[in-house]
């Protein structure tokens, strides 16, 4: 239950509160380039979500078993080769190169799949499908997972990594579809000539980002709402002390005022 609540918190956080596009500015290129029509934007969003999940799955596996300090596979190899039982090899320095390799190959995979089974979709993507390789959102998700997996306090499992990636992709889809909807309406407006195209898109994105700032703080209240059982269980002693301290001055102060009277 607690685990589920944590997953929900990660999902909501990745999708709306710290939306990849509007808070971290990753994936701006397709956000501006492919947001002309809603159907294409939705297709792009789905492709990105799909690639991001595959890339997260692969990069988590690689990080967990090979790259992180004291990872099982590398540790076993180094220990059996050198005979040093206390060796803790750390390959995280290679992570960027490995991730970009993982992303490039999963994009290749998706491209082959879409070309084979959904030719119209493939045509409408055009040049943008190979460009997903250089979509910052995907590498960004991998890097975030890396930072959580290597952090000794967090040590994220595969489930959390996947939830982060999938809902990051959902947040991206949401942002790009909203943007495409606004831009379809914007076509009927009289925009000043020099602002047409990317400039007005960025300004609209700014207003959209302001709207998404309204979600800030939702995670804290969700946390309180979903983990009521956890709060007393884990922090009961500290909290009871705190409440005792908080209450103590009350009556005391009252008594003092009584005495003064």
């Amino acid at each position, binding site marked *: 239950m607690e685990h589920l609540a944590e997953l929900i918190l990660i999902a909501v956080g990745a999708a709306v509160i710290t939306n990849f596009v509007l808070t971290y500015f990753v994936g701006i290129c397709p956000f501006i380039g492919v947001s002309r029509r809603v159907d294409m934007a939705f297709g792009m969003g789905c492709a990105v979500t799909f690639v991001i999940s595959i890339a997260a799955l692969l990069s988590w596996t690689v990080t967990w078993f090979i790259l992180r300090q004291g990872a099982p596979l590398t540790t076993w190899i180094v220990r059996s080769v050198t005979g040093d039982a206390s060796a803790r090899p750390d390959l995280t320095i290679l992570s960027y190169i490995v991730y970009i390799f993982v992303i490039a190959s999963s994009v290749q995979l998706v491209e082959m799949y879409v070309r084979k089974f959904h030719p119209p979709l493939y045509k409408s993507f055009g040049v943008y499908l190979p460009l997903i390789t250089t979509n910052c959102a995907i590498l960004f998700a991998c*890097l975030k997972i890396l930072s959580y997996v290597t952090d000794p306090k967090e040590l994220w499992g595969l489930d959390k990594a996947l939830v982060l990636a999938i809902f990051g992709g959902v947040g991206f889809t949401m942002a790009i579809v909203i943007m495409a909807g606004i831009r379809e309406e914007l076509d009927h407006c009289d925009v000043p000539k020099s*602002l047409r195209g990317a*400039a007005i898109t960025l300004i609209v994105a700014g207003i959209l*980002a302001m709207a998404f700032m309204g979600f800030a703080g939702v995670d804290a209240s969700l946390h309180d709402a979903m983990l009521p059982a956890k709060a007393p269980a884990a922090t009961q002693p500290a909290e009871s002390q705190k409440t005792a301290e908080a209450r103590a001055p009350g009556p005391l102060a009252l008594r003092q005022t009584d005495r003064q009277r």
Partner: protein
Amino acid sequence: MAEDGPTPLERFLRGILPENPVYRQLLGMCPTLAVTNGMREAMTMAGAVTFVLLCANILISLIRHLLKPHLRILVFTLTIAAFVTIADRFLAAFLPEMSQKLGPYVPLIIVNCIIICRCEVCASKQSLPAAVGDAVGQSIGFALALASIATVREVLGSGSWFGLELLPESIWPRWGIMLLPPGAFLTLGLLLGGANRLSSWRSAKRAPQTSQG
């Protein structure tokens, strides 16, 4: 091949304004928006991009005869990833605070479209001097674009420039929104509009002259 292309000097000059990577080509938007809340961050980022772009352009230009067309992009990204790792470790070792502030945006240089675009358009086809000139010109253009956005955001948002206080709080109430994501989008949108206006005005001014001449 280099003879019919523009000379290194032309490539260098072109990168700064006429083909400015941010304002004219709309490349490299993520760092442009993400690290421009202060001049220091922006200039560190520009330095890192310059290093990576220069090294990647030199290396790609040297090995351009060995490249196979279908493996081209993969070679580019792996080369860039190697140099970005160097830049990232360097920042973490010598500027740890800055490295913490820039966070994931240093590794995200790997997927910065400017570098891949320059490798593809220039370095993989041109000789070494042209590639170097192009890299330096594009880097300066990128740094200028970052500086313009960071100046607007830092002055309006925290009343300072490079951390030096310009406007005391009593005169200039801080526009906190300029330091947050919406401020980045709005600033870049408006500056982009201004740049478009400027270039259309310039070309309109030039058009009658050329037709007369």
